[in-house]
């Protein structure tokens, strides 16, 4: 079943994060006024981003200066002859019409720029169609693109507190890594201020304290942390849960198993 919504309510960064963590395969269709975009994913990584239908055609490679028209025609002919699950990109690399590196670089740059533009949309309907794949002749990056740094880029463009406050309601919260962040960091390109925040996260200091120690504003710290949260690297905990001192968590009443069993039996019998 398709996932539908609006990026006003469930932001593009959030959706990319969902695709990443859920290893989703499919196509994300976006529309805003008279603009459209289509993003194809394979197991949580980005294959192609099209801001217009022509971006899904082989001729994109001519526009990007990767190939000339004759080379594109030749590759398309070979694709039609060989077919059988091959993609245009595989044909191009196998026949030596372009190197994998050159193709990757050109398509990655184009794809990233296409996605960055989408973060400027204040709203827009989305529909994610599971398992929808691009046409075989679509110009796909040979290596699917990690979307972690796209998520961070989206977060950098957030300029309102409101959205950040939804996830970070207070600067008294303590950011804490969910796991050693090494693997996740590989795909990310952090700005200097983000590195400053990143380096100060120790599982003890609150966001307010990090702002004080880095000399950054609360907003800048929270925005960076929002990005790390969206990329699934961090959690935020209340200080009381971190420190042994201070107000302890509220204890839940401990019930007798026999009492719980009585309730279970009653509900079962209803």
């Amino acid at each position, binding site marked *: 079943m398709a996932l539908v919504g609006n990026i006003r309510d469930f932001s593009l960064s959030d959706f990319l994060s*969902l695709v990443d963590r*859920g290893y989703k395969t499919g196509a994300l269709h976006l529309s805003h006024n008279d603009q459209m975009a289509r993003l194809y994913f394979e197991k949580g990584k980005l294959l192609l981003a099209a801001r217009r239908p022509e971006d899904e055609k082989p001729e994109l490679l001519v526009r990007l200066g990767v190939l000339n028209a004759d080379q594109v025609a030749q590759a398309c002919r070979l694709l039609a002859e060989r077919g059988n699950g091959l993609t245009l990109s595989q044909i191009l690399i196998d026949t030596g019409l372009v190197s994998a590196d050159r193709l990757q670089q050109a398509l990655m740059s184009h794809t990233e720029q296409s996605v960055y533009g989408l973060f400027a949309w204040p709203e827009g309907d989305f529909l994610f169609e599971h398992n929808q794949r691009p046409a075989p002749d679509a110009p796909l990056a040979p290596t699917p693109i990690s979307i972690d740094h796209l998520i961070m880029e989206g977060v950098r463009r957030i300029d309102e507190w409101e959205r950040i406050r939804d996830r970070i309601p207070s600067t008294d919260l303590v950011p804490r890594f969910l796991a050693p962040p090494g693997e996740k960091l590989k795909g990310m390109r952090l700005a200097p201020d983000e590195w400053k925040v990143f380096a100060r996260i120790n599982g003890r200091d609150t966001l307010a304290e990090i702002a004080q120690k880095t000399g950054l504003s609360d907003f800048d710290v929270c925005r960076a942390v929002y990005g790390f949260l969206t990329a699934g690297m961090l959690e935020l905990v209340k200080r009381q849960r971190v420190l042994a001192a201070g107000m302890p968590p509220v204890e839940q009443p401990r*019930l007798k*198993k026999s009492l719980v069993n009585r*309730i279970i039996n009653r509900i079962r019998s209803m």
Partner: protein
Amino acid sequence: MQTVKMVISGAVNAGKTEFIKTISEIEVVSTERRATDDTRLIKKETTVAMDFGRIAISDDLVLHLFGTPGQKRFDFMWEILAEGMLGLVILVDSTRPETFRETNRIIDFFVSYRDTPYVIAANKQDRPNAWSPEELRLALRQPPHIKVLPCTATDRESVKNVLLELLYVIQERSED
């Protein structure tokens, strides 16, 4: 007579009233409380539509079900309801991604200071374009050990299943 309490929470229109109605043995009651926010400037008494249902477990034991008011201005009621609760069902309207952020806020409120047993009920699974429980888990950023269950709040068996799953979580934590 011993009473135990479960809380049913979720954003506006998540299906809390329907959920309680479907399983309660009494007509769902709406209670009234004095509001403490700015609505008091307009009138002295403001109705807080808080749903209340009841299931008799035995002659000496009763389960109360409380639905929290969905509107933000009644957040103060949540603290009161959370006191001494056995467990929590968070209902989500699976067809409305615009409510997911609010749902996260509610989860955060109830869970962050308390070690509350809770499950998430992905309501309205019978509707087209409902996000699946697994997709909701990702959207709500819930860890794998939290149960995200399919639910149709108008269906008694579905509601029973959600309550039972919550009770199994509570059972694991209970004393012999």
